[in-house]
């Protein structure tokens, strides 16, 4: 009898240890704008929780949302809100998308540091990006052809910019489409006649962010949405998060997590 009870205790102990030693794997993917936040947060979270493995990837907001809908991601990073048809597709597949605002961002309109233009109106930005203005002299600058850089259409930054600045109009055909914020920031930094747009986290001394409608892209202006190109950044989960997924979202929304948001160059909510 004693031998039997020993076997039971040993078995239960083994199962408990095996369960305790198990690793939770979470997959995060989507917006390249949210990517720096997700990467920093994942790193810190994994340090504090060795039993959790977070795999973080970019790909663009559309790709991330599609992955959440397909069940290949646990979290979809998005620099825009889900579209109505994406929500409908998700619901049809039994996915219940729940939004979490993790940060605020301003889409900074950037020029080469030598460009004399300091301010652009939304109307001027729209005309530049839709092909109605092609020379800097038309907006008070030098007589030089504008080199227009844009994010590609899979990007949430592109969608947000098109919605906030272009009134849904199409980007001019000769615009150079780039797959990342970094590529745009680097190209604008090396091209005197260029104009581009990036998330706040990609600003550097090599490029100049103009004011839009005479409003500077500052933390306060973004948080209050006074800056015209302000937007929230999202992480989407399937239903209300539970377990380690909840712990990770809670971590990003905590003061410590929001400090990481600021470290990544975005505007924390706290």
């Amino acid at each position, binding site marked *: 009898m004693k031998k039997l009870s020993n076997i039971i205790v040993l078995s239960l102990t083994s199962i408990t240890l095996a369960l305790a030693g198990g690793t939770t794997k979470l997959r995060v993917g989507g917006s390249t704008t949210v990517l720096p936040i997700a990467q920093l947060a994942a790193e810190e979270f994994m340090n504090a929780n060795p039993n959790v493995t977070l795999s973080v990837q970019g790909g663009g907001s559309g790709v991330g949302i599609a992955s959440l809908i397909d069940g290949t991601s646990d979290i979809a990073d998005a620099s825009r*809100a*889900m579209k*109505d048809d994406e*929500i*409908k597709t998700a*619901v049809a597949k039994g996915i*219940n*998308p*729940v*939004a*979490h*605002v993790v940060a*605020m961002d301003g889409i900074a309109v950037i020029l080469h540091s030598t460009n004399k233009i300091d301010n652009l109106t939304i109307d001027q930005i729209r005309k530049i990006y839709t092909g109605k203005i092609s020379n800097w002299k038309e907006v008070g600058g030098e007589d030089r052809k504008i080199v227009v850089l844009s994010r590609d259409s899979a990007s949430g930054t592109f969608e947000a910019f098109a919605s906030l600045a272009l009134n849904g*109009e199409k980007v001019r055909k000769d615009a150079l489409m780039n797959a990342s914020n970094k590529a745009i920031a680097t190209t604008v930094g090396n091209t005197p006649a260029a104009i581009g747009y990036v998330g706040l986290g990609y600003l550097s001394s090599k490029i100049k962010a103009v004011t839009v409608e005479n409003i500077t892209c500052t933390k*306060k202006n973004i*948080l*209050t*949405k006074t800056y015209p190109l302000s937007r*929230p950044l*999202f992480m989407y989960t399937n239903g209300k998060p539970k377990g380690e997924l909840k712990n990770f979202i809670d971590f990003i929304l*905590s*003061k*410590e997590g929001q400090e990481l948001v600021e470290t990544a160059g975005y*505007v*924390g*909510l*706290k």
Partner: protein
Amino acid sequence: MNKTQKTEKRMKKSEWKIKTVLALFGFCAIALHAGELDRLVNELVEKGVIDAGKAQEILTLTEEEMRTDMNAGKVSTLPAWIQKMNLKGDFRFRNQWEAAEDDTVSRMRQRIRFRLNGEAAVAQGFKVGFGLATGGSDPRSTNQTLENSFETKTIMLDYAFANYTFPKYMGVMLGKFYSNLGFWTPTDYMWDTDITVEGVAAAFNFKKLFLNTGLYLLDEKGLVEDVIADNPRLLVLQPGLNLGQAGKYNLKVAGTYYRFNKTKDLTFDDAKWTNSYYTVGSTKFLTNGYNNVSLSGEVAVFEKIFPYIGVCFEMNKNIEAESDIANSGMASGVAFGAEKIKDKGQWQVKCIYRKLEKDAWLDFLPDSDTYGGKTDVKGSEFIVQYGLTRNVVLGLDYYSIENLRGTIKPEQLLQTDIQFKF
């Protein structure tokens, strides 16, 4: 308790304050009018209850939660009957100049067209559709000429149908519906696009192949016991192939067999009597049968020089004609610009040439703007369309058509349209 814990405790306290305030207002956040919620949250920020970040989070998440619930069908601000309905329509103002073959002087008139189309979901896979439109009983026109001392105009039932769709593979329609829902034609030289056919249609799709079938009733003429034999009707069989790569190209071809059970020795409403006929007393009767075979094709290429370039062709032969002459027709066309005009600045140019011999096809079916919709004609049509703004399209449509035989009487027609879609 360290500083971080204190801050988080303070934030949680703030959240409770928000919830309490919302509860005191007597309604949940999702039901609040957006403006009211904005004002409330801004007031809480001003009073220092919450910070700007929390305010933005509340506003954004409330909006997102509401949008998700609405798209998931969990909540709606609309009555149930409206949720089941989908309404759309258009209004067109037309200035029409014509130098018709049978007029000694040219004619100018202004016409309007108003259409209201609705669809209601009945059950999974089933829907009912209807369309109301201006115009009289002419099956080939929904235009209403502005005339007669401001008389009020009639609204007619343009179509009404029930439809069942079996996902991907099959669809069935029953009732009165646009011909292009029953079978495919790339031009209107045989079928005026305003015609709504009456009967039953079934479409089958398998991968890149399709088969459109339909049985359409042309008239009611028989006694009850002779209905099957006497009522003229049309059987359509249209196998086809649809190949393509989204955003790059599309190729569609189809062969169509039109089988009329009887047309010979009959008289039809709205016939133009350009088909061969004989007369008994004062009544005209068709001399021929009109069973037809037709071959159609359309190639579209996208984002090469223009956003869209399309080339189409169509040819038909009346295999029941009693003579080998004057029994065939053809049309070919090219279009470039935008595939469809939906937005400001989009444009399309289209050109179609057509030739339709006297007994190639029944003369109450072709495009009514081409020489009055008659057969025994040939000529060209040029169309230019431009998007003035979203859903507002300016169009010019010019026809230069002449008859094929006898004394040649050319006809010109210019339509200037502005169309508003909603």
